[in-house]
């Protein structure tokens, strides 16, 4: 059993608890135990905090990292925004001595020190990694294959970009999450401008909602064209933008899409036999019913 400190972030536990619940259960079935990271906070939001003062962003993220260092466990997380903060700050502080010293100066006041002893992983990359889980194990864990459904993938931005600082290779046409979707028995579908942002990041959702959901609307147009039954992603903030965003699009632009949006862990949970109730799919703004009828 691989053990990780589970960094929850904000939106999964506080808006889509089904995604959190599904993460524990699906990971456990695949040999990963997610442990509580007691006292963790917001990552903090890279758009909001990073825009105001990068030094505070470094220090706040470092506090979360130190909590995991004290547990002597690598961090696993399920949100691209958290990945940006936690992975990137870990990476930067390990690399730049001057930055690290500056951050430790601040952390000293709360009796903490960043040492750089752990790594940070997105649960999706652990699932894909054959040395940890791999596609075969995912396939073997499936009890209710999602046969006959067409599922599109939204990668989000902060997991793989900027590619120079990450380890995922090209960010133009990735296909690894689609492979994980295919492992559940569904048919992954490609669509126009797949790597386009959801529109929520950088504080834009709060700054200019109409601008932000206009980007989301462009994604919805492209997804409709591909005739997807559902959209899956690995970021609760993208999920919020696509899910609640569709309601906002209806209000502001008068366009109805009705496309169910599920976190990959929720999708995996369904395929492993979890019920929609166990995944709290009723909390989603857009009904997942049409998709569930095809599956169950």
């Amino acid at each position, binding site marked *: 059993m691989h053990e990780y400190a589970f960094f929850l972030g904000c939106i999964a536990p506080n808006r889509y608890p089904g995604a959190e619940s599904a993460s524990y259960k699906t990971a456990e079935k695949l040999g990963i135990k997610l442990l509580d990271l007691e006292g963790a*906070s917001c990552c903090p939001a890279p758009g909001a905090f990073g825009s105001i003062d990068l030094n505070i962003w470094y220090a706040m993220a470092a506090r979360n990292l130190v909590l995991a260092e004290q547990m002597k466990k690598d961090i696993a997380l399920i949100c691209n925004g958290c990945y940006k903060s936690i992975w990137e700050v870990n990476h930067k502080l390990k690399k730049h001595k001057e930055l690290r010293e500056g951050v430790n100066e601040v952390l000293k006041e709360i009796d903490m020190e960043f040492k750089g002893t752990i790594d940070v992983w997105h649960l999706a990359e652990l699932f894909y990694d054959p040395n940890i889980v791999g596609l075969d194990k995912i396939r073997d864990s499936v009890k209710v294959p999602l046969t006959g459904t067409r599922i599109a993938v939204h990668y989000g931005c902060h997991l793989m970009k900027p590619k120079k600082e990450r380890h995922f290779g090209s960010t133009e046409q990735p296909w690894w999450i689609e492979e994980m979707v295919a492992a559940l028995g569904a048919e992954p579908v490609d669509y126009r401008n797949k790597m386009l942002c959801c529109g929520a990041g*950088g504080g834009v959702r709060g700054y200019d909602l109409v601008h932000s959901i206009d980007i989301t609307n462009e994604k919805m147009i492209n997804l409709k064209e591909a005739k997807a039954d559902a959209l899956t992603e690995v970021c609760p903030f993208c999920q919020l933008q696509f899910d609640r965003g569709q309601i906002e699009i209806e209000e502001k632009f008068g366009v109805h899409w009705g496309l169910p949006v599920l976190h990959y862990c929720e999708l995996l949970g369904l395929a492993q036999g979890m019920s929609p109730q166990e995944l709290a799919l009723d909390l989603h703004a857009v009904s997942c019913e049409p998709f569930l009828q095809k599956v169950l």
Partner: protein
Amino acid sequence: MARTKGYPEALEKKLADTRLYEDERHPEFTRTVEKISMSIPHMCYQCGTCTASCPSAPRSSYRIRKFMRRALLGLEEEALTDPDLWLCTTCYSCTDRCPRDIAPTDVIMAMRNLAAQRDIVPVNFLKTVQAIYSTGHGVPNNDVNRAARKKLGLPADPPTTHGFPKYVKGIQSIIDHFGLKARADRIVKEREG
């Protein structure tokens, strides 16, 4: 082309005049931006790949290429007072495609930091700071969600600062170290009363 936000009057006037005035250039602005962003906007040759990759460009007057030019020429005032500065979704498409290996996204972040130092920052950013200061979460828990969590067999509050509020103090110390809470409170009050 409809603009998403009205420009300040002084900037509007400035943009109507496309000439470059030597006294508006601040070379130290270029250097500061490069230091904060850890990037090299002075290498920009204005190809426009960034703007062409930008999800915000087709739906607003935001042009990342323009901001790269301002960074290179040291046009501090023009860069920091432009409300379009806050329309970057930080998607990093421009960064991944830049043929000069510059990180325009990080240049924008650096400029936002410098603008914020002058209290030029949208209120929603500051409200996130206030939320994190009081609860540790930018998007805090609520009663509907607590009920749903219990139904799933999860604790009503997650094992974060919500479940262990004693950790909030550490977060407050960090934010107070930079005096950010006081600044956020002041600016929000000035704008919203």
